[in-house]
């Protein structure tokens, strides 16, 4: 691999946004096209980060900083893509939020960050989101994935309400629904008619990719 791309990948892996920004600019100056830079340096970098998280070498701060580095590099590459009338391949469109009655933010935001870094278009509704808001945004964006977070045994039932609301709006067939949060599980996902459960932000990326076949 080109030396600049190698270093850029490493900047993502170790989570250095300033270096990543600088190296992305260097890659452009050296005449490397933005799409190969993304596909050969940034995406594999995030893959390594995910693997290290799974193995217990990396923890949440490492994920956050890697995603920041990815974002910093993309901020440099995106204008170059636009100038070429190209775009990074969008893997899918995700509407995500923490369900009504629940104000837990960190886990949901981390999932959104990791999905964005992986190449999904993510619409984050925030926390304490009524079912009707999920329905509205799925309609508006034509999303094909819905992510529902709940951290309390008392609020996880509202994940089911969102699924019901999507059915009532005739949107259920259009979207894959993924649930997460401390009390959720694969059993729970199955019970309420979700398509999958993801235990953490890194797993969420793999689960969504698998559901969409991308």
């Amino acid at each position, binding site marked *: 691999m080109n030396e600049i791309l190698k270093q850029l990948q490493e900047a993502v892996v170790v989570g250095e946004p300033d270096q990543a920004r600088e190296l992305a600019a260097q890659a452009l100056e050296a005449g490397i096209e933005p799409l190969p830079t993304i596909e050969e340096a940034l995406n594999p970098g995030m893959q390594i980060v995910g693997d290290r998280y799974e193995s217990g070498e990396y*923890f949440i701060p490492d994920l956050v900083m890697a995603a920041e580095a990815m974002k910093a590099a993309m901020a440099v590459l995106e204008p170059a893509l636009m100038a070429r009338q190209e775009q990074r391949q969008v893997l899918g469109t995700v509407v995500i939020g923490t369900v009504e009655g629940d*104000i*837990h933010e960190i886990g949901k935001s981390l999932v959104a960050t990791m999905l964005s870094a992986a190449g999904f278009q993510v619409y984050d509704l925030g926390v*304490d989101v009524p079912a009707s808001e999920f329905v509205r945004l799925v309609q508006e964006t034509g999303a094909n994935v819905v992510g529902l977070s709940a951290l309390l045994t008392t609020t996880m039932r509202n994940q089911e309400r969102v699924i019901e609301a999507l059915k009532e709006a005739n949107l259920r067939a259009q979207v894959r629904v993924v649930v997460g949060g401390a009390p959720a*599980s694969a*059993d729970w996902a199955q019970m309420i008619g979700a398509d999958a459960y993801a235990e953490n932000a890194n797993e969420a990326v793999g689960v969504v990719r698998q559901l969409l076949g991308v």
Partner: protein
Amino acid sequence: MAPERWLWENPDPVRDVHRAYVEAGADLILTCTFGGTQVRLERAGLAERVAEVNRRAVEVAREAAGSEVYVAGDIGPLGEFLAPLGRLPYGRAVEIFAEQAAALAEAGVDALYIETMSDLNEVRAAIEGARQAGSGIPIFATLSFDRHGRTNMGVRPGQAAEALQSLGIDAFGANCGATLEMTEGAVAKMHEVAPQVPLVVKPNAGKPHMVGREVVYDATPEDMAEYARRFVSLGAQVVGGCCGSTPAHIAAIAEAVKG
């Protein structure tokens, strides 16, 4: 509805929960203020009512505790990352914790209990805030060990014990946690690093799973009692139960360790 709202709108069930644990043999109960910091109350639309929420929670707990049982003011994580990972500056975090701690202290808690922490900087901020406000009230702090024996933020138990020992708080340890085994491993490590420090251990009643449509934690009261004995042998002087721990779990723990 935010749990804290119950304190005004429906305090009887909150008091009844406290009372059930007192009757089960608890010597110390925690106020319903896990989300009682300004940043968390803000998300529940209660940002202006920090002092009131925390005062009311202490009153309700005290009504159940009577004069024989201690009431500790519960302080949970802020629910957002501190800088540089997030936007919240350390100094601001200290102020937020100090505000809650002051309200709890003024309402007359016997101790301040900082819990379910993952980030060492956030624990430091909470302790600093508690110190500013607490005027000599004992301070306990526990972290949640959830992944590969470390906190979600990657903090090792030995590293936490070193840092907390150097801060000189009254007691520290582990709570919540992915599994009882993981919490036990963390406690053993903390005891090794800080053998003189009284540890506080308040694990979940095992792991959650579905029974019908209910989430149930899989450790029985007997399991919890057995672990409580082990925690005591590893230097714990305060033991209890976190998520999924019913009054029956607490009764079994009390019987096992109070002998």
